[in-house]
């Protein structure tokens, strides 16, 4: 079997080349963040102080969601369109490692995306950006990305199994934005929805980011470190689930003969 690190690096590099080869890369990296920020600031236009930063952070997290979670799955769809799905699967390496390379690249793009939103918010819309605890903010942001990546990896299995993967993950995009509290606190959601929110790892990371960034913010109320701990536990489960699912879906796709459908 191929060296996994070699395959992950190659996959990451190819994702970069493919993104930059297409002028549309400006849409997810610059244009979409600008729109997210604009919408967030429009919604919160009558407030001032930390709430404005709350809105910009929410927009940033939504942007990161888009690129990180859906980028991995859509790369599988692109493989189907290109006809490269079979060529990729024909390699002597489990598909999950190739997708991990793409996930890492998408995570980096997600970080750029989040940073772009903050920069646009601060420079263009004159939003104040004063983080309460910068080191904890940075740590929570990086770990939340890890969690988003693991969630994206789980979702991407649907794309391997079926060409209808995009339909499924697109339909849960907005509910997931709401459930994870990107735009308003989870505790404002109806009680019946809250268990769903708490089952999603990044919900806790988003809370930790805000605890570290916003003065006086309590959010879920569990505190920064417990937030991170719960998220890391969920992330470990997601990674384990993704690796298990990839073995199953590869086998299932081979059995059903759906690998070449596009």
């Amino acid at each position, binding site marked *: *079997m*191929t*060296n996994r690190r*070699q*395959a992950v*690096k*190659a*996959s990451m*590099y*190819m994702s970069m*080349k*493919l993104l930059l*080869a*297409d002028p549309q890369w400006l849409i997810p990296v610059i244009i979409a963040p600008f729109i997210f920020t604009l919408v967030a600031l429009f919604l919160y236009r009558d407030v001032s102080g930390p709430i404005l930063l709350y809105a910009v952070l929410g927009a940033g997290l939504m942007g990161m969601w888009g690129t990180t979670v859906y980028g991995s799955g859509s790369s599988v769809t692109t493989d189907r369109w*290109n*006809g*490269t799905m*079979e*060529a*990729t*699967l*024909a*390699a*002597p*390496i*489990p598909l999950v490692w*190739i997708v991990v390379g793409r996930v890492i690249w998408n995570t980096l793009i997600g970080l750029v995306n989040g940073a772009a939103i903050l920069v646009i918010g601060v420079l263009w819309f004159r939003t104040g950006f004063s983080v309460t605890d910068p080191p904890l903010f940075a740590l929570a942001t990086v770990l939340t990305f890890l969690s988003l990546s693991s969630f994206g990896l789980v979702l991407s299995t649907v794309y391997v199994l079926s060409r209808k993967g995009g339909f499924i993950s697109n339909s849960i995009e907005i509910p997931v934005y709401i459930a994870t509290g990107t735009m308003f606190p989870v505790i404002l959601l109806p009680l019946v929805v809250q268990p769903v929110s708490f089952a999603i790892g990044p919900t806790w990371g988003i809370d930790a980011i805000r605890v570290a960034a916003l003065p006086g913010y309590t959010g879920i109320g569990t505190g920064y470190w417990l937030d991170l701990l719960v998220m890391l536990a969920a992330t470990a489960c997601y990674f384990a689930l993704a690796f298990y699912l990839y073995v199953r879906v590869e*086998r299932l796709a*081979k*059995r*059903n*003969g759906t*690998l070449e459908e596009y």
Partner: protein
Amino acid sequence: MAEGETAAGETGAIEVVDLRREYATRSFLARSARVTVALEGISLSVSRGELFGLIGPNGAGKTTTIKILTTLLSPTSGRARILGLDIARDYYAIRSRIGIVFGGERGLYNRVTAVENLRYFANLYGVSPSEIEGRVARLVKLVGLEGRENDRVEKYSRGMKQRLHIAKALVHDPELVFLDEPTIGLDPGGARDVREMVRQMKKDGKTIFLTTHNMFEADELCDRIAVISRGRIVALDTPAGLKRLVRDISVIELQTYDATSEFVERLGRLPGVTRVVPDIESERQVIKVQTSAPAEVLPLIAGVAEGVRIIDKAIREPTLEDAYLKLVEE
């Protein structure tokens, strides 16, 4: 001696026993699935270093066979061993020792260059990083893409893409190469170049499993050929052996103008005619009349022409195509 081993203890390149594949398609809200049988239990073996051809009409099961043997599709039942390894259990080990050439425009990253495609797949196949650049350069030269290797693949002609497919399949120096209709859609010059590359692979000691629609190509290249029809192997022999199946017939080849399907039917009713193979849709109409008594049939043809202009007529020996048509139509 274990199954598939030769007397010298070396396993064959491919051993297939009773391979069957069904596809189940289920429409929305349908309670039961519709089952299509693509392979009805085929068996074959290919020796190391052999150039083996699989020919058959569209939908006969050629691509399904290749997909199963390259571990991309699971069989419904039956067994297959590739280089002594089990397709159901040892698929990663198999993949690292085989190369696959899928025909057509798809299967390449079009927005990046040929070199970037080759580097990527070399890495996925675990080629040592220190060897990749040298190997990519050699392959670019081998398939004649020198000077264009740093152009994006989307700017390539069909023939250039096919050359790149071949280079991609060879990037990890496989022992066994599967070629799925490698010359389909190529112009005559491009097809000849691909055939030359296939010959070179064989000279380099590789085992080759080739599917094709082109009978001339199969006849010219293959050591042995299996004919597949409706999911079954209906014949397996050398090209000369397959042609012997039709040695008792001759072919009268007519070049015509204004030929109609009625004319073809009248030819088929002539005494002594066993089969008529028309190609009257294109501008250059060619009708092949198979018969065991060409001297008796030839003078009768003018009598059923009824306005169809026969530009040329000739009696020739049967070819592999004639044998193939006899096999798949029976």
